[in-house]
């Protein structure tokens, strides 16, 4: 794999909280312009891995390489500035700020005021529901609206890489396909996406590469469609159906 096509390379990551090690020796390579899915059961360490890419956990060992540069010692606010953006699984909007203010905070590090204004309009085009709610506090939004705002907020920094942690958990089924098609549009714009999902089938169907995590380890990897037809994978993670 040539270095130019790699957006983020996680090498031998062992991380956790305080003294507890939650994920161990994780090697995941994120290719530019692709969707990489990370699936696995609840508690397997998927969210911890994403937090680690952003520097929100304790890194015991390993390196996170972004465009050939080791970013594992950078504070989170600097990782945002080098073009990584993150939608956490929970608490992913500022509840007491309005929808508009949330979007402005997404663009906090940017200096191009005029373009930020235009991008907010552009985002409203992608998520029209937000337009109706601009002055409403984010804490009053429904689950689906909140997820859309969270994604919109993350896009406002004009990221090259977007980390999405279970973007459709606790979202009404009708809205799920809507959000997934938006994710498709995001990738089409050339943004690299890392998609964490507990619902393995849904994620593996849309992704290019898939990683399966279990108890803090990567236990399988491969193109999404291949994993979906892999006997061992079906047996262990999808159940017989």
């Amino acid at each position: 794999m040539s270095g130019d096509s790699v957006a983020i390379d996680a090498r031998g990551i062992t991380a956790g909280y305080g003294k507890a090690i939650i994920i161990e020796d994780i090697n995941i390579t994120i290719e530019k312009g692709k969707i990489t899915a990370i699936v696995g059961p609840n508690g397997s360490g998927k969210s911890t891995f994403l937090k680690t890419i952003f520097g929100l956990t304790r890194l015991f060992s390993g390196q996170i390489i972004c465009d050939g540069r080791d970013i594992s010692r950078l504070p989170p606010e600097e990782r945002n500035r080098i073009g990584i953006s993150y939608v956490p699984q929970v608490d992913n909007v500022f509840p007491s700020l309005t929808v508009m203010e949330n979007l402005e905070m997404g663009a906090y590090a940017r200096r191009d005021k005029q373009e930020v204004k235009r991008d907010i309009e552009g985002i409203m085009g992608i998520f029209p529901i937000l337009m109706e709610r601009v002055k409403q506090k984010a804490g009053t939004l429904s689950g689906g609206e909140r997820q859309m705002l969270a994604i919109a907020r993350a896009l406002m920094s004009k990221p090259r890489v977007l980390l999405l942690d279970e973007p459709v958990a606790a979202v009404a089924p009708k809205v799920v396909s809507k959000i997934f098609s938006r994710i498709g549009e995001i990738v089409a714009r050339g943004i690299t996406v890392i998609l964490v999902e507990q619902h393995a089938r849904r994620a593996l169907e849309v992704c290019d590469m898939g990683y399966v995590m279990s108890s803090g380890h990567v236990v399988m990897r491969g193109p999404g469609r291949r994993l979906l037809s892999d006997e061992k994978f079906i047996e262990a993670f999808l159940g017989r159906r």
Partner: protein
Amino acid sequence: MDLILPVLNSITLGSLFTLMALGLTLTFSVTRIVNFAHAELVAIGGYVTAVVTNYIGLSIYESLVAAFVASAILALAMDELAFKPLYKRGSPTLFLLVASIGIDLVVRFSLFLTADATGNIIIQTKVPIQPLMPLGKTYLTTFQVVVIPLTLAVVVVLHALFHYTKVGKALRAMADNEDLARVSGIKIYTLRRLAWMLVGGTAGLAGGLWSIYLVIDPDFGWNSLLRIFAASILGGFTSFWGTVIGGYIIGFAENLGIATLNTWFGVSTAYAPLISFAIIVAVFLIKPSGFAGIDLSSLLAKLRGLHKNLEPEAEG
């Protein structure tokens, strides 16, 4: 009972309590620290104002600016030397609270020693308060026409900062969710410094104004702490406007309240500080979220009989 004087005093004291309490609320919102040492930010402001006016001979406005700056620096030092290192180690809220009591003691005793050595245990800023115009049986004073508008100006400026500037909005974002603020690119330690300077500055300004109004001693910040907490707690401890309302309620409760109790029930005015304590207990028992927990729009809708069970998930 003539009402004009106690009402005027209530508004004056309410303004001072509001100025003192806004910083405490801001501290808790942004850093989650229950800061007992806030008392000394007020006290240092009082002493700096008095010393700069009485001994150095600068004008009262220059002295108040000096108080603002001195307390802002003290607040910053408290954080850099004690709170921030503890926070970075992941110390629990209780440790930070106990640390704040320790900081308070250190500053208060240093102040006491300095004041004692220079013969200033008791001091008042020498600015004559003059009657300006008659108001019923009493007078509107030069002090009142400065303190009340000045407090409102600070409130308006802070409100504008929090709602119309990028750093102000970022401060609110940080208060909501610090990790999310960080991943959005907000430099939380820079903003934290700004927050502490605003906290110290407003508290120092309040202390300075207090030192014009009344005689102060090194314990005056500590002795005001219960009221400061009461004002902040009435507002839910994180609400800006809740604290403003809380400050004036404490002002009225301690003046008009005790005057009424005194007139009607013969309660000694010496019990005035107990009112703040009673208010704190009452808020904790009845509505721990203070005014911030009252959903004004649904309350209004209810009053108009239009309440249609709006969004049950909106508030926790």
